[in-house]
């Protein structure tokens, strides 16, 4: 392999050589190279294999549309498959590996598929692999899956950082080529806030490969000067290595900045990629135009390259395409390449132009063959010859490089992301962006304009007028005369080429050739969307950037209609693929969701709590003691201790809402299904909240602190939802009510002190008399603590069924108060208990949680039928609760369940069958909603929702857990296992 690097020229830094490897082979490039240009400079032609036929493939483009040159780079958690060599900047030590080949890139067994290609046409798999039935999954599919796919992704975690950010601007300029730079400068000089984004490492776009001059400066120098001016302006953000990938509603653009993807060792404190959401008042789409390939036999052989790409490698990277180059062009742009090749002293074997008078201005030495087409290219892993057909004759020319230009397609993807359909222009032989876009204006080549001078003028004009529309005194910047510009006249349309013998590829990566599209039309899949789906044309990683327009042209020919009538498939984000990492930003691992921490977290931690994730909270689940073998032992101890002595449990995460104002009671009366108007000051009441469809939504206690001030608690799980709902009631349903709502969940540290000794312990810190008369069951009052050093709110409510209180103190004091109580209660045996013990205690008492309030139960199902006010004129859920189905006698209703043999147990989620009934859907009677081992009863106990459950106390049933193969004989009972007369509550 010899060097194809030209001795001078290009935008590479020859003082900074970079060593890299391809498939383990050491190579060298320079700073400023892309991986693709470096490979070409090293004489590397074959870089990949195609998807289906494993055909040898080389580098086709110099940009984002590259379908062939996909490689895997990086290692370990940084392994990155399917990296476009054309977009990857070279860095020292870059190790690139080819993909989709076995055993090697040069000798790939998969290439045998090419021999079978007559049988592997479009959609072949829909027609076979159906027999025998079991063979699909066992034989065919594993083989197909193994053969399919491109690169191999890692299963290791990514060590690098990602982040997101927002940005706002008057004008977003997408693409920093001539059009974009002109637009940005024209708006920015007038003071507009401008963001310019370009996917390349440096601004300039096509200017970087251009040999024309602008006001005497070379195109790259002009680009450099423009970029420098933009960088210096405080109202401009110039983002290089940044791809705007999507246009969303509200003129929001998604962009991804590859902050450190060009570095061998990313700095750990800096993200490798950054996702931008850019809010733009206006935007200019200066994304340029994509050169179209031509569809002839063997157009995929390494050595065949887009003309613009060849020009870019030549001028920007100083890489020669080959020794003998031919140019096949349907428009004048091929001649700019010819001129530049000759200027570098490189040989052009021929220029093939299908037009009658193409290249009229061409003054070079190359043989110009008009009225001619290339029908076939030859060669295996590298191009060796082409067949040229002219006037019915075919001539074979030996060449090792072939440049293609089939015309230009404006890059209008973003303009179509919000539902607009592209419009076919017969005159320009191209699809143009949808008319009258709101907020996004295509400019320059992206709007179908050709030529450097015209693009500069159009960009300047559009940038200035958008800025002017926003009130800035902007005018288009004149950039001076352009010399050596070669505006390409519209191409001759050449969808299909007569006389083709070999496979003429339309979609390179997916190996869709022109006959596949014919077949699709023939079989009834002629609609552009069906053809895409049937042939997979346009579904490769380039999303049809090179192939779609040719496919449309070919479909149009096959159907006998115009390309406009065929239409395009839908352009959707992402313009180019975006990594999961960038889209996720920092929000994964421990940052996936924010942690919500109780003010008693430290207290619980000090007492050895095992924590469990509950929504965003961490709750203390149980508090193991030395010597306890498992969680059950700890929980049993905690439960018994609450029943016998006292326990302290953190309930800070209950939702807490303060409801003030003259109509607060009225609002509560409408939000709860039970009555609240007459709740006395200083009292708490259990409240049941329904949804408008009559189902129970949430429950909790609400206390009247003052005449016009209530303190509502909700369940932990529904705290946010209930707050939203209460605000909905107050703002949307009944705005005439004077109610003021505030979430005070975080203001209060709240702790339950439960057990027969709780009063005594609490009295040690509470100044007021807690005697049963002074502070009876359901009392709820502000109290003074520690001799007036602190004030809190005390509620005599009980979830455990014991004599119990909930004490709320300002959050920052929670930790100390809990500690003080723990200390004060030590003599009386107070210990902390967690949610596991809390759960046992409440099941023993038959108190429901969201295990039972599952969104499909009515108050009646839970045994709360009598609570529902019959007299209130209105409350949420009243009307729908009357429906027949919600009052059907056979609805599942809450019931208790115990195993007949205390040695046996069952679990939540087990189903209830009639005793001895077979486990079938018809025999399903209900299910266990909650279960626990009750150390107090000495057996598993459960709550269940069972058909007619409330009428079946005492009935023997089978608790069936098919997942575990368990049948447990059990008995239904009242859903209260402890102190049914509530004596302890009132003690």
């Amino acid at each position, binding site marked *: 392999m010899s060097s194809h690097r030209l001795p001078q020229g290009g935008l590479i830094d020859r003082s900074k050589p970079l060593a890299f490897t391809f498939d383990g082979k050491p190579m060298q490039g320079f700073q400023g190279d892309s991986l693709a240009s470096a490979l070409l400079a090293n004489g590397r032609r074959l870089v990949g294999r195609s998807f289906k036929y494993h055909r040898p493939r080389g580098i086709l483009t110099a940009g984002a549309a590259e379908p062939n040159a996909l490689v895997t780079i990086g290692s370990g958690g940084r392994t990155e498959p399917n990296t476009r060599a054309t977009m990857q900047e070279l860095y020292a030590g870059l190790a690139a590996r080819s993909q989709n080949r076995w055993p090697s890139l040069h000798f790939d067994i998969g290439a045998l598929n090419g021999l079978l290609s007559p049988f592997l046409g479009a959609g072949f798999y829909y027609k076979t692999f159906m027999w025998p039935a079991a063979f699909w999954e066992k034989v065919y599919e594993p083989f197909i899956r193994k053969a399919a796919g491109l690169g191999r992704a890692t299963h290791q975690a990514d060590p690098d950082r990602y982040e997101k950010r927002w940005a706002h601007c008057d004008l977003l300029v997408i693409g920093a080529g001539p059009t974009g730079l002109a637009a940005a400068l024209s708006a920015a000089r007038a003071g507009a806030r401008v963001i310019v984004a370009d996917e390349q490492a440096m601004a300039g776009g096509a200017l970087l490969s251009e040999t024309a001059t602008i006001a005497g400066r070379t195109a790259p120098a002009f680009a450099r000067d423009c970029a420098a001016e933009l960088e210096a302006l405080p109202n401009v953000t110039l983002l290089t290595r940044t791809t705007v990938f999507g246009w*969303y*509603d*509200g*003129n*929001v653009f998604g962009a991804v900045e590859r902050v450190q993807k060009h570095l061998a060792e990313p700095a750990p404190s800096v993200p490798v990629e950054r996702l931008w*959401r850019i*809010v733009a008042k206006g935007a200019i789409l200066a994304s340029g135009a994509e050169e179209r390939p031509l569809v002839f036999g063997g157009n995929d052989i390494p050595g065949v390259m887009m003309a613009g790409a060849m020009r870019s490698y030549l001028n920007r990277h100083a890489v020669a395409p080959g020794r003998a180059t031919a140019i096949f062009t349907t428009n004048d742009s091929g001649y700019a390449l010819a001129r530049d090749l000759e200027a570098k002293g490189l040989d052009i074997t021929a220029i093939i132009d299908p037009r009658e008078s193409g290249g009229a201005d061409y003054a070079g030495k190359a043989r110009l063959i008009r009225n001619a087409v290339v029908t076939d290219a030859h060669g295996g892993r590298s191009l060796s010859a082409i067949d040229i057909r002219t006037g019915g004759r075919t001539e074979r020319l030996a060449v090792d490089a072939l440049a293609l230009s089939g015309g230009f397609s404006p890059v209008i993807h973003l303009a179509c992301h*919000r*539902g607009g359909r592209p419009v076919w222009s017969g005159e320009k032989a191209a699809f143009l962006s949808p008319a009258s876009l709101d907020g996004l204006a295509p400019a320059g080549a992206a709007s179908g304009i050709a030529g450097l001078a015209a693009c500069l003028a159009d960009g300047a004009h559009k940038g200035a007028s958008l800025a002017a529309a926003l009130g800035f005194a902007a005018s288009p910047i004149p950039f001076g005369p352009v010399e050596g510009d070669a505006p390409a006249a519209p191409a001759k349309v050449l969808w299909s080429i007569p006389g083709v013998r070999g496979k003429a590829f339309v979609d390179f990566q997916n190996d869709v050739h022109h006959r596949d599209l014919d077949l699709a039309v023939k079989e009834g899949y002629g609609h552009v969307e069906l053809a895409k789906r049937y042939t997979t044309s346009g579904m490769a990683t380039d999303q049809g950037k090179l192939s779609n327009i040719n496919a449309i042209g070919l479909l149009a020919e096959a159907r006998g209609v115009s390309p406009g009538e065929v239409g395009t498939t839908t352009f959707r984000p992402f313009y180019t693929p975006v990594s999961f990492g960038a889209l996720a930003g920092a929000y994964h691992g421990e940052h996936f969701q924010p942690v919500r921490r109780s003010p008693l977290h430290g207290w619980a931690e000090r007492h050895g709590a095992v924590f469990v994730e509950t929504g965003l909270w961490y709750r203390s689940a149980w508090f193991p003691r030395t010597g306890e073998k498992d969680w059950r032992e700890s929980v049993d101890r905690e439960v018994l201790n609450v029943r016998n002595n006292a326990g302290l449990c953190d309930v800070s995460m209950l939702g807490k809402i303060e409801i003030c104002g003259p109509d607060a009671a009225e609002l509560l009366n409408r939000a709860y299904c039970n009555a609240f108007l007459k709740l006395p000051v200083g009292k708490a009441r259990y409240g049941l909240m329904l949804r*408008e*469809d009559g189902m129970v939504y949430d429950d909790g206690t609400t206390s009247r602190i003052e005449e016009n001030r209530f303190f509502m608690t909700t369940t932990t799980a529904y705290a*946010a939802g209930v707050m*939203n709902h209460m*605000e*909905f009631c107050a*703002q*949307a*349903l009944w*705005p005439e009510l004077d109610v003021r709502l505030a979430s005070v969940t975080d203001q209060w540290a709240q702790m339950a002190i439960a057990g027969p000794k709780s009063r005594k312990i609490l009295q040690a810190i509470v100044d007021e008399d807690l005697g049963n008369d002074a502070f009876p069951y359901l009392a709820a009052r502000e109290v003074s603590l520690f001799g007036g050093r602190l004030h809190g709110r005390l509620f005599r409510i009980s979830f455990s069924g014991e004599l119990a209180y909930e004490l709320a103190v300002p959050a920052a004091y929670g930790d100390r108060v809990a500690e003080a109580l723990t200390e004060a209660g030590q003599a009386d045996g107070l210990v902390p208990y967690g949610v596991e013990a809390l759960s046992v205690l409440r099941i023993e008492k038959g108190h429901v949680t969201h295990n039972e309030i599952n969104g499909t139960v009515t108050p009646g199902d839970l045994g709360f039928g009598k609570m529902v006010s019959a007299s209130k*004129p*209105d409350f949420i859920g*009243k*009307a*729908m609760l*009357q429906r027949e189905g919600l009052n059907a006698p056979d609805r599942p209703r809450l019931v208790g369940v115990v195993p007949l043999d205390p040695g046996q147990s069952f679990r939540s989620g087990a189903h209830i069958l009639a005793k001895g009934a077979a486990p079938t859907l018809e025999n399903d009677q209900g299910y266990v909603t909650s279960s626990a081992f009750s150390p107090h009863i000495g057996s598993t106990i459960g709550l269940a929702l069972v058909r007619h459950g409330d009428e079946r106390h005492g009935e023997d049933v089978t608790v069936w857990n098919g997942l575990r193969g368990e049948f447990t004989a059990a008995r239904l009972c009242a859903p209260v296992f402890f102190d049914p007369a509530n004596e302890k509550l009132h003690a």
Partner: protein
Amino acid sequence: MASLVPCPHCGPRPKEEFTIKGAALPRPAPTADPAEWFDYVYLRDNPRGSYAEYWHHTAGCRRWLVVSRDTITHQVAACRDAAAQGHAA
């Protein structure tokens, strides 16, 4: 729109700051016919085109808004506080 909802109190804000409830319909009178209640709770016009929806600016001003939006273009025609004046029909 939905990428940016023009909150009348906070200015344009992204979707993730909001909770969406659904059709902004007037709640029937307590004495209304069951059929009217059923219609309110369960039936939806669900049009292609202009639609009024309740959005709650949960992570902003915490006001319930009535967002009038086109269900095809996502353009927001109006966005007002739900308490401002009655309900959108």
